[in-house]
């Protein structure tokens, strides 16, 4: 009986949250910036959740995400004139997956090694783009301005994208694929020895990561209407920030990327808006504080609380 009640409670909570999120553009119609921030939040949630899939659950410290994001962004920029909008997004994801195959030789490396190998991909693509005028060169590309341009029409796709990413990664984690993936993430050698084809899982999980990151990039580009190599392939923004969001929120959990993104972005924007001079300092110090006092990430604190409550109740 308690289980059913709890299920109802969660369902109500989720619906309420969704309702709230859906109405954001209307609530903040006179403050489009707020809607933009939340739009960005969903982009980051997508990036964090998709990275967490391969990096958290799968244990692959893949630092190439900026390449996936940028690939998606550039696909959008190049094809926006000729291809219908939503299809463009999907293509962005596909191109990102195609690009990610370059990383495959790195899979024979282990641990931090692999991480540094993947770090190169964004740089390589950046350099290629800078030197080819047909891809925009260093100046970048402008996208055609749509006739109806308002944040709301980008907000909902980003919300849906975040939801789909979370849903699909959730389903995958719960499936036998996710089972093997986590085994690999726990201990790669042990997984190999019981017959898990680790290379297959590494590649496939990276494809999932790349796909959603690519779509996120394409969506972002379609709103910003401008792509430029240093911004689209900026590692700090599109690789490191999402990873830190995951670490903050709790790696290897579904809630982690969401919580971490909210907290990270919340802190970042609150601080940069109100305390511009000291913003970097405070932001950095906050990261330190969180890492020191909540080393397992924020969601671990919350799960612990929930478990306590459950224990005392029953």
């Amino acid at each position, binding site marked *: 009986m308690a289980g059913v009640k709890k299920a109802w409670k969660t369902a109500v909570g989720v619906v309420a949250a969704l309702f709230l999120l859906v109405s954001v553009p209307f609530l903040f119609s006179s403050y489009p910036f707020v809607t933009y921030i939340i739009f960005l939040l969903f982009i980051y949630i997508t990036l964090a959740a998709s990275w967490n899939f391969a990096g958290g659950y799968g244990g692959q410290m893949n630092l190439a995400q900026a390449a996936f994001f940028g690939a998606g962004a550039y696909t959008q920029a190049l094809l926006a004139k000729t291809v219908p909008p939503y299809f463009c997004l999907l293509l962005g994801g596909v191109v990102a997956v195609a690009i990610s195959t370059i990383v495959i030789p790195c899979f024979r*490396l282990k*641990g931090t*090694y692999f991480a540094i190998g993947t770090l190169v991909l964004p740089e390589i693509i950046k350099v290629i783009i800078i030197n080819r005028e047909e891809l925009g060169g260093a100046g970048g590309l402008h996208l055609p301005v749509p006739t109806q341009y308002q944040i709301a029409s980008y907000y909902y796709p980003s919300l849906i994208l975040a939801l789909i990413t979370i849903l699909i990664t959730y389903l995958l984690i719960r499936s036998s694929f996710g089972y093997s993936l986590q085994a690999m993430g726990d201990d790669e050698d042990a997984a190999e020895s019981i017959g898990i084809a680790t290379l297959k899982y590494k590649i496939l999980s990276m494809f999932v990561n790349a796909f959603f990151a690519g779509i996120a990039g394409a969506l972002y580009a379609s709103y910003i209407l401008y792509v430029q190599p240093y911004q689209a392939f900026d590692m700090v923004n599109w690789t490191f920030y999402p990873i*830190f969001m995951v670490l903050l929120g709790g790696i290897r959990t579904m809630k982690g990327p969401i919580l971490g993104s909210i907290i990270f972005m919340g802190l970042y924007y609150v601080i940069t808006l109100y305390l511009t001079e000291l913003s970097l300092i*405070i*932001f*950095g110090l906050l*990261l*330190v504080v969180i*890492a020191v006092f909540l080393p397992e990430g924020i969601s671990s604190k919350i799960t612990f609380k929930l478990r306590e409550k459950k224990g005392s109740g029953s």
Partner: protein
Amino acid sequence: MVPKSYDKIRAKQATIIAVLLAILFLTISYFGYGWLTQFFALGVILGGIYAVAAIPFAWIYGVMRFFNLAHGELIIVGAYVSYWLFVIAQIDPFVSLPLSFAFLAAVGFIYYKVIVSRIRKVGVNPTLVASFGLAFALQGLMLLICRADPRAILTPYSKVGISIGPVVLPLIRVIVLLVAVTIMILLRYFLMRTFFGRACRAVSQDWEVSEMIGINSERIYMLSFILCSGLAGIAGTLIGMAYSFEPTIGLRAYLLKSIAITVLGGVGSIGGIIAGGIVLGLAEVFGALFLGGGYRDAIAFIILILAISFKPTGLFGKVAHL
């Protein structure tokens, strides 16, 4: 436990030598002999300084497996300390070397006590977040206090040139290189011949057994951290004298290059890091020559990739040891 695959090591060395010879040939044929030695000298100087900057990073990683993302910032803080001491109190930067050391050692002590000692045991993730956060905070602090424009410590003798054979070099860089080399030689002696150095090496190779035979590993961590933070300060001062610097360069340039050199040269051997530094320095100088200045930082990347591809024993050696 013996380093395996000497053939692979030989192959790697052979390839590197082949590449260097090719560059040698290209430069001579294109620019002529004089230019070559000029660039070579500049590259070696750059490399020596990169090596001094990389050693503390490698040492900390070797002893306690701590990936200090704030390393670049510590270096730049050292540069600023010497800069301000010079501008405000007219203290010659060579004289301020020990002061820079002391200041950064103190910073390192606080860093260790407040942050590192608490999260060290938990795992890799909190250390990355915390050191990254600290890097941000320090960078922000420097931007706030010192503003973003590039600076250099310009003493009356900074502009003097010295000719050694066919080569003309800024005197200050030559002296800085000599100081750097002296420091590295001292460090090697320290590491190999003192009890503390031996303890550091023991802890980096097997901390559990080190505890069992009477080494207070916690103390070794702390002392290493203090020492290496101080060294970062010294590296910063040297950089401030020889080149220019500004707050954002720490993370971008020096951290990455320290990582690249450590991978290339191995965590354990100071000689390896010197070699790695020189390789990077030469590669940057010659790379800038052939590919243009914009690619300078990218060269560290490329080196890193090559190092990874050829290194037979993983990133920092099978056992990241000192």
